[in-house]
């Protein structure tokens, strides 16, 4: 027995030595052990990216968040798009043959000249013409049998027994894109089942949309009462006054009054085409139960199509074989040539064949995989990602030496968004009811809260402190000395310097809270701050906020909540101070200033004015400004508005984050574009270089394993000796035990 064991141990020792030698000779070859993808894919033209939250809606009528847009904007094609390279952002045609210019009508329907004052304009008419010959991606909803009937439009529930995903339908078809598809989609805004987030906004502008929704609802309810199967409303049969098909490739939209911002909406997926066949196909019995809906399976004309949709693992976009073709832009901004942005000018796009988006819930693995070369680009501004990105940097915007050595590139752009710290103006201490006292208090806090420090600590300088409600890149934003907020900053040494704390303290005294104590009662002023800070970073941030208020002697009480609860509080107006953010829908100041418009008050009108700020003078100017086109007159009004806001300080003018993208040097044509979401088609990668770098960076380090094994063997030796002794000494020992 003994000898056998000894022999086995000796034998395996030799075997281990051989293994050791073998693995020392050839550690990993070209294929790193930690490659999360199959080795055979390494030289393919595949872009690797990640998502951290499964997209909730892929239906363009419902989708309204950036993680969803990063997928569907590459599939659905609205009539317009933003120019990829040019700044300021400019609309160019996508499927439309030109950018539509509206013409205006008066009440009686007579045409008006283009320079008519707003008050006299009753209607704006948009005539949109699309290019012929554009075809849809291959899709089962469009598949026809040899007799010309739709193959999958008359399915029964039992036909779906073996069907779990869309790809289980074997046949596909396509057809040409027509103007009717665009109209169909606009009609879907009013469909009782779609819950489009922009229905409310659009019904104010598109003629007849409200009545249309009521009509559809009536029809839908009638039909639903009569049949048990899901109701499909063929929207082609119900006419919408304001939107009509005027030809195979043309359609017309009637807008109430003048609404210059409408053209921006035409670049959003809400206005992408939807073939009626797809709607018909997905409303068949059993489809919803199997999750085969438009919400999960987009159908478009764009450069890519979604071929694998498994939000538990990955979402794969593949080149659309029917794509109508587009050329890489041949004009850009100064500097684009030097940056290599125009190297591909005039070439047909898209360049990349496949995009694999893998689920990556945690920011840390995502960041590490990017460093190892397994993600080509580290995604766009999601919260968790912000945390990962700052990790790479030491202090300011420069890349660390480590990164630069790896050839990692950085592109930055100030996002057209603002994160602000708002006061609830309904509050008796900080809001309107406190009158002048409240205003002094708000002004004092505006000076004391050192946003520059916040940016440097928590964002590593990746942002700029706001001087007003408008972020850079939006009309009305002013650079340099002219743009500073005189209440909180002074211009010195060519940069804005925050006013000294003494000024804040004297404002506190004017507010009747000298040293943070109520002048009459002597009590310490307590303020409440509601925030959605639950992440690992939040403790440090909340401490920081407390410190800022302590500078004025105010005690800040932080009430962190989940987002759900937070929204509820905002709706009820029970918060005192809060932080929130806003991302531009389109590059127009109206889209920011409406956040402070009285009739948009959250508590009273359920609008987006979360602080319930209400200033009649502001409201008057805002109404005047909102529908004007960009012009010197508009600028003057905007400046007046901004001055009023700065004096009233309903927000601590927040910060405008710089959006960061890091990418490897095998990734080309990356220029941040904060308005366009369909930028995938411009990107190019070099798989050869990628494979080489990955192998270089990911050589497995095996010696600790061998060390561990050696340690184990060494420690086993005395055990073995004592084992032998024990075997031999057994009789005495058990005798002892017996005793």
């Amino acid at each position, binding site marked *: 027995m003994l000898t056998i064991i000894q022999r086995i141990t000796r034998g395996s020792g030799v075997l281990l030595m051989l293994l050791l030698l073998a693995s020392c000779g050839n550690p990993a070859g070209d294929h790193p052990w930690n490659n999360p993808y199959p080795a055979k894919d390494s030289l393919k033209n595949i872009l690797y990216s990640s998502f951290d939250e499964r997209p909730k809606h892929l239906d363009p009528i419902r989708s309204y968040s950036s993680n969803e847009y990063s997928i569907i904007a590459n599939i659905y094609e609205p009539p317009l798009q933003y120019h990829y390279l040019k700044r300021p952002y400019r609309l160019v045609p996508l499927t439309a043959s030109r950018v539509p210019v509206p013409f205006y009508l008066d009440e009686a329907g007579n045409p008006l000249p283009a320079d008519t004052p707003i008050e006299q304009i009753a209607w704006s008419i948009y005539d949109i013409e699309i290019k012929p010959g554009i075809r849809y991606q291959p899709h089962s909803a469009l598949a026809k049998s040899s007799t010309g009937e739709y193959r999958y439009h008359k399915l029964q529930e039992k036909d779906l027994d073996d069907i779990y995903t869309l790809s289980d339908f074997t046949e596909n078809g396509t057809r040409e894109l027509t103007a009717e598809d665009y109209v169909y989609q606009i009609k879907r805004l009013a469909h009782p089942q779609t819950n489009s987030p922009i229905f409310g906004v659009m019904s104010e502008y598109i003629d007849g949309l409200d009545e249309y929704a009521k009509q559809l609802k009536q029809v839908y309810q009638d039909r639903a009462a009569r049949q048990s199967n899901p109701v499909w409303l063929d929207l082609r049969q119900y006419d919408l006054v304001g939107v009509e098909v005027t030809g195979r490739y043309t359609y017309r939209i009637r807008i109430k009054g003048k609404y210059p911002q409408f053209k921006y909406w035409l670049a959003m997926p809400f206005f992408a085409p939807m073939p009626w066949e797809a709607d018909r196909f997905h409303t068949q019995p059993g489809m919803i139960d199997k999750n085969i809906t438009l919400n999960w399976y987009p159908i478009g004309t764009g450069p890519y199509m979604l071929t694998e949709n498994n939000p538990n693992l990955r979402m794969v976009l593949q080149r659309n074989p029917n794509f109508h073709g587009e050329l890489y832009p041949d004009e850009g901004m100064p500097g684009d040539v030097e940056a290599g942005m125009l190297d591909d000018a005039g070439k047909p796009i898209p360049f990349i064949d496949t995009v694999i988006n893998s689920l990556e819930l945690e*920011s840390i693995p995502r960041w590490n995989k990017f460093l190892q070369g397994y993600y080509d680009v580290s995604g766009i501004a999601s919260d968790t990602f912000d945390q990962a990105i700052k990790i790479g940097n030491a202090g300011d915007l420069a890349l660390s030496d480590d990164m630069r050595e790896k050839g990692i590139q950085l592109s930055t752009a100030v996002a057209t968004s603002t994160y602000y710290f708002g006061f609830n103006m309904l509050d008796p201490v900080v809001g309107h009811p406190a009158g002048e006292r409240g205003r002094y208090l708000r002004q004092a806090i505006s000076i004391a809260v050192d946003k520059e420090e916040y940016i440097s600590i928590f964002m590593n300088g990746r942002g700029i402190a706001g001087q007003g409600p408008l972020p850079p890149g939006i009309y009305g934003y002013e650079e340099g000395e002219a743009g500073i907020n005189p209440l909180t900053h002074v211009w010195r040494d060519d940069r804005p310097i925050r006013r000294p704390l003494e000024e804040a303290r004297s404002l506190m005294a004017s507010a009747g809270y000298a040293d943070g104590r109520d002048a009459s009662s002597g009590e310490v002023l307590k303020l409440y701050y509601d925030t959605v800070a639950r992440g690992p970073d939040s*403790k*440090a941030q*909340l401490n920081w906020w407390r410190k800022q208020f302590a500078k004025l002697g105010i*005690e800040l*009480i932080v009430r962190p*909540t989940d987002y759900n609860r937070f929204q509820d509080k905002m709706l009820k107006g029970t918060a005192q101070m809060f932080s929130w953010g806003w991302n531009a829908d389109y590059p127009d100041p109206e889209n920011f200033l409406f956040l402070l418009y009285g009739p948009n008050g959250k508590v009273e009108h359920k609008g987006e004015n979360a602080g319930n700020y209400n200033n009649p003078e502001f409201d008057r100017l805002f109404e005047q400004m909102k529908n004007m086109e960009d012009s010197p007159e508009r600028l003057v009004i905007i400046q007046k508005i901004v001055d009023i806001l700065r004096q009233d300080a309903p927000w601590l003018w927040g910060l405008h984050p710089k959006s960061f993208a890091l990418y490897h040097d095998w990734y080309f044509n990356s220029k941040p574009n904060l308005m366009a979401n369909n930028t995938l088609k411009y990107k190019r990668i070099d798989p050869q270089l990628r494979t080489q770098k990955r192998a270089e960076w990911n050589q497995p380090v095996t010696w600790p394993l061998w060390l561990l094994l050696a340690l184990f063997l060494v420690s086993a030796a005395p055990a073995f000796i004592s084992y032998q002794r024990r075997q031999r000494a057994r009789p005495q020992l058990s005798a002892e035990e017996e005793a």
Partner: protein
Amino acid sequence: MIQVLWTDALIFLLVAAITGFALYARSREHLRAPWRQVIRKPLGMSALVILLVYVLVGLLDSLHFRPELEQQNGGNTEVQYAASIESVLDLMLDDLRSSTEKTYSAPFALRQYNKETIEDEQGNKRREYPRLLHAGTHLQDLSMHAQDITQRFLFTLMGGLMVWGLSVAFIVVLVVFKTGDPLQKVLHTMWHGQRDLPWRSLFATLGFILLVILFLMNTASVYHVLGTDKVGEDVLYQAIKSIRTGLVIGTLTTLIMLPFAVLLGIMAGYIKGWVDDVIQYIYTTLNSIPGVLLIAAAVLMMLVYMETHPDLFGTGVERSDFRLLFLCMILGVTSWTGLCRLLRAETLKLSELEYVQAAEALGVGRLKIILRHILPNVMHIILIAIVMDFSGLVLAEAVLSYLNIGVDPTMYSWGNMINSSRLELAREPIVWWAFMAAFIFMFLLVLSANLFADAVRDAFDPRLRERA
């Protein structure tokens, strides 16, 4: 103004209960004997000493008060108190608490961990590591840094050894006087572990603690011994402040669930019949819900309650204190079932015993039987459960905080420290000290608790006692 938080009150209740029990047990040999056995074990002794240090810190951190504010307006108004709540420990660690830097710095560092753009008098901009505000300010020459640390270390070592030697000598002399044994014999038996107490490990543990404390006292005032965190707060301070959170979770959870477990367990086992069925039903049902999910749901509910009643929870400290207490309750709800089941089984067994049956036959009341005969005989189970649960609860806190359903994010706790250190470990260059600090402090506590629990179990479990 003294401020008693909910958990403070419960902690002092617990302390009072333990003291009361100790006084009661002093004169009763059968109660003292197992405890003597616990401290006779070298590991049990060492663990106990370390636990006592933790408890002391926790108790100091449980004495809360509001500092008085300076008088205003010539002192004619009423005395006002600051809204912030501080503890005695905060006063003692004021040095650490107030010495905040701007952001990260490594242990014992003189400079910040990140480069910053600094402007000198001539207006030239340079990128460099800025000097820390509260580290090594006593050094005239920064190159003396390493030497200074070594000096302080050696000084601590020598001083510590001296103090330690003196106290050991003092104790030895005391023992000599008390027992009347000759000095040589005392020393000899102590060294060979032949005395009633494991003096060797006691002295070693004392020496270890003494050295650590002296070293911290000597260096923490001039350096950030465990570095600083993202907003420049001293990590050592955070780790020490987290002790109370860990202890509260570990003890109060048991304290809260104990009455239910004991009452229901004994009732089920003794009264039997439908009472037994109902109690069994309750604990089987609660037990079959996955614990984490139950805790998550309950914590969400608590947050709603705190939202809707903001006036009940004035300052941040009170809010997080309530959350902590509630967490203890939830953990209690999910953990009482095990003990309850054990007690039921034991009571069933006991109630069949002759003397209980005899008492019943004599018409002694049920309550009296439970108090007289059953409760004392299941005490060892309760005690073992308490000490065994402790370490598991401390560990659970970290996991729950990781899932964001633990203590308040503003509260100092090891779980929160670990949670944020995950991001720090992914930084480049890596920030490891907060992770390490949480690891060491938590590990030491849990390890001592485990070793102590083993000693207690060995001493109290009759099955093990018989075998020994």
